[in-house]
């Protein structure tokens, strides 16, 4: 496994320590020949709020999957803090994933578990004590305004509520980075606003937030950094951008 300071030789140590995520010349080609990402260079610093925008199929979800090593890059290097992700041994992946909370596009809530149990899962897998789980889960559910639905199952919740359970699960173990993949895809405008404000608040507490979306209103409402992807390439990177077509 390599670390940032010994690869390429172009990044000095002080820069390395200030970087949360870095993609260096990353390509992702699927076995059927589809090139999902091509020559992606991206640097995200701690505490940033970054929108990844672009039409469907632009490569936003692939970029997220590469970062948590759900997929492996075909070429290039990906760094999370000081670790090179692409060559990370399998036994180190759980530690990487504990540092990155992901709100998946399809939520990935477990239908046989209650809201409480779904959120608690993130803490159970890292071996947190039951007493601690009983304290932390209600606290994070209060944050996402779902304290009244702890005993509900996912199919008893609306799309927006399911989305907030997914955010609570991604957030409960206090990751360094929170990634939300199309978090407002299936929710009404009021819930969109509520989720956007929640993500903004999480970022203000110091967590690096990356939101993949093609929701123009969400992007334009926050005036944050916008990285635009098209056909697997980064075509724009505006520090305080708007969604540009």
């Amino acid at each position, binding site marked *: 496994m390599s670390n940032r300071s010994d690869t390429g030789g172009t990044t000095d140590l002080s820069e390395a320590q200030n970087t949360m995520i870095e993609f260096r010349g990353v390509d992702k080609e699927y076995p059927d020949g589809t090139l999902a990402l091509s020559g992606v260079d991206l640097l995200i610093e701690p505490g940033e709020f970054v929108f990844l925008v672009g039409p469907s199929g632009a490569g936003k979800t692939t970029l997220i999957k590469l970062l*948590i090593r*759900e997929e492996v890059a075909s070429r290039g290097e990906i760094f999370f803090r000081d670790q090179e992700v692409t060559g990370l041994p*399998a*036994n180190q*992946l*759980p*530690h*990487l*994933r*504990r540092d990155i909370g*992901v709100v*998946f596009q399809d939520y*990935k809530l*477990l239908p*046989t578990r209650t809201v409480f149990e779904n959120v608690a*899962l*993130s803490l*159970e*897998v*890292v*071996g*947190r*004590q*039951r007493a601690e789980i009983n304290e932390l889960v209600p606290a994070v559910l209060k944050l996402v305004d779902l304290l009244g639905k702890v005993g509900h199952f996912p199919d008893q919740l609306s799309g927006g509520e399911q989305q907030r359970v997914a955010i609570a*699960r*991604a957030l409960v*173990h206090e990751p360094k980075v929170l990634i939300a993949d199309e978090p407002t895809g299936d929710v009404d405008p009021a819930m969109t606003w509520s989720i956007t404000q929640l993500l903004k608040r999480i970022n203000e507490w110091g967590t690096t937030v990356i939101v993949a979306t093609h929701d123009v209103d969400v992007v334009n409402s926050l005036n944050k950094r916008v990285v635009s992807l098209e056909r697997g390439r980064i075509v724009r990177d505006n520090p305080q951008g708007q969604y540009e077509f």
Partner: protein
Amino acid sequence: MNSNFLPESLLLAGQYVRRNLFLTVASVAVMTLTFFVTATFVGAAAGADSAVKFLESKAQITVFFKNDAPPEKIMAIKDNLEAGGSTIEVKYISQEEALKIYLGQHQDEPTLLESVNAGIFPPSLEIRGRRLSDLPQLAKELENKEGVEEVVFFKEVVDTFLRWTQTIRLFGLILISILTLISVLITLITIGMTIYTRVEEIEVMRLVGATAWYIRLPFLFQGALYGLISASLSSVLFLAATPVVTPYFFRLMGVTSLGTVPFPLSDPVFLAEIVAGQLFFGVFLGIAGSAAAIRKYLRF
């Protein structure tokens, strides 16, 4: 490994067992059958072994002399046999001693003791040979000695027992091997089905940072639980069946007339060993099935 890891895994294993009730019942039934058959054959083989040893320790040839055979002639044959080197022990039973043995064996049956006296019991020599293979020749020679009334030869009984023991071992080994294979396969299928129905959960666990062992361990415990439950059920069945089946076992082997054969299944230590062996074998088999399922269906 943190302190919550094992209890959480056990809880999950219990949940997997409960939520796949039909498969659990099927697995436990097959494994129980395996353990019960194994215990039965181990018990039967041990019983047969014990009976063979018992018979070998008894007089293998008993030479009954005519009632009027002079003791000095009998003693001369005894001395001759002892000097020959093909015997381990030659014991002279006089008419008086034969009466004593009879009285001892039938002391609770007064009707059998009426008008019994030493004169009706023939004097005898009880002989233990060095090798079973020497006995036919020895028996033949004794039949021709002067004063000999009858030579009773136990070789056939011993041979029958040896044959039974070999048959039990061979048949048992084949049956146990087949059932063990079926048990491992059914555990593999059951755990495989559990894994299959939990693919989504396993994927989410991995994505939120579960280690491979956090995911695997409940399935290993699930297999071990199947083994433990099955071995316990089998042990209860076995302990309940033993006193009922044992007399039939001896009758089948034709040894009811040979008196009390020390049978290991009436020994509490042996029974405890059988139960402990079943529990160990059960857990081992369950874990083996789970490990095979994990290897096959849970690759990451």
